């Protein structure tokens, strides 16, 4: 009893999921671990944290203004939290002060848990200050923005990371970071804000780059398997586009109709 028009959706979601899970399984059993190319932005993360430690200035991180149950950017937020775990570990290791600015209340408990864990794993639990290392600013986009840029100015941050679903505040955060001289790495799946990051930040993980980086940086090698799954899904899409376009030039609209079913 599939709804008409959603058949293609069900097939595609199921098919892609099976491919990804199959490769995830292969990778977790160490049968096949794909080689993933590194995005320059990923390398820049540890470079920026190291630079901040050298300068003795803090590192700031924003996991975006989209909530955990956002209907469009939930994946974005989840990826940002995974990257936060990596940045927090790097920052604690290098000894630089970490400041995480939070807008959506739902992300706050997760971010607190992640950062607290990162500190205690390095045996520096006492350096984690409740309410201060992970700072809640405001659930309101502009309340958050004003606090975050105020913080960047006052703390003179040396490295700034903006990941996750940012909206119209993206350029304001990024440009303020540039003004205070921070090295910035950003990423988002909000296609309207990506250009802002590309223009104002040193490195930008464009769209899927950020989602793949979350898997790449994970200590668990099996996760790279899904990245290869993503590749296969994309190559299928390329195939559909090329074949579909050629067929429709010949007047056959079968691919289009299949997708519309």
């Amino acid at each position: 009893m599939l709804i008409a028009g959603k058949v293609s959706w069900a097939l595609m979601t199921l098919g892609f999921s099976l491919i990804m899970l199959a490769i995830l399984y292969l990778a977790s059993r160490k049968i096949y671990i794909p080689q993933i190319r590194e995005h320059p932005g990923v390398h820049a993360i540890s470079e920026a944290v190291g630079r901040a430690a050298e300068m003795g200035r803090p590192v700031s991180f924003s996991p975006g203004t989209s909530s955990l149950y956002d209907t469009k950017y939930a994946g974005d937020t989840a990826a940002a939290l995974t990257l936060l775990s990596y940045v927090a570990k790097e920052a604690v290791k290098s000894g630089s002060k970490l400041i995480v600015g939070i807008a959506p209340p739902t992300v706050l408990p997760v971010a607190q848990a992640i950062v607290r864990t990162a500190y205690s794993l390095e045996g520096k639990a006492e350096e984690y200050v409740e309410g201060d290392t992970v700072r809640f600013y405001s659930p309101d986009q502009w309340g958050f923005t004003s606090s975050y840029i105020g913080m960047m100015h006052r703390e003179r941050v040396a490295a700034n990371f903006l990941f996750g679903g940012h909206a119209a505040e993206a350029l304001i955060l990024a440009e303020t970071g540039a003004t205070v001289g921070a090295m910035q790495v950003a990423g988002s799946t909000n296609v309207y804000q990506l250009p802002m990051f590309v223009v104002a930040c040193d490195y930008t993980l464009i769209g899927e780059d950020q989602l793949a980086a979350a898997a790449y940086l994970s200590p668990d090698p099996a996760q790279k398997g899904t990245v290869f799954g993503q590749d296969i899904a994309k190559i299928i899409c390329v195939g559909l586009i090329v074949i579909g376009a050629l067929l429709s030039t010949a007047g056959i609209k079968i691919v289009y109709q299949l997708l519309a079913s």
Partner: protein
Amino acid sequence: MMDPATMLSLLISTTLILAIYTILYRENPAFRIGEHLVVGATVGHAVVLAVFQIRDLAWRKVESGIATGNIAGIAYIIPMLLGVFLYFQFASKYRFLARVSIALMLAVGLALSIRGLIFVNVIGQIQGALAPLTGIDRIAYLIGVVCALLYFVYERRASRAAGPLPKIGRYVLMLTMGAYFANTIMGRLSIVIGTLTSLFVDPAWYLIPVAFLIICADAFIRRKGSKSEKAG
């Protein structure tokens, strides 16, 4: 003539607008006042909203559920419990309880995102790319979209096998970024023009030169200060 309440509101809002814009010069007490005011106000506003939300979305449903024996209504006790569970993350012994609440929110968000993004982004965009190749522009679109998609291939061997296409795809993406960047300018300018228009009303606009004078005075004093430092 305006009534005093409107006049006061206008003067406060103008002062706040100017205070916020001083960040373009440098971080300063005026900006800080605006910043802390807006955080306090928005968090207070959100707390009130959240209280009403819990009351209307959960508490009332439980009440009417108990009255009518509707199980779906009574079940709204569960999210309220899960909400309380979130606070256990401050107690290291019971931290695992908070994970249950987080799991619920994350599941809803991820599932909703997946269903929307596969339907609109993937299927919708592939459909859009299937137009017949009737002209040079259509052929260029096809090559462009294929190259840009191949840029997002991460596996080393597959990426190498695609030859120069991912590199071309990177240029296509940069072109897109430039175009979308410039295309937002007009909307952003409209907003700042709207704000400026609201500043240029009668009693409010006198505050603009005052703000400029303060900034100039500050810049002058700081300049002098830095010079004497050098001399000393």
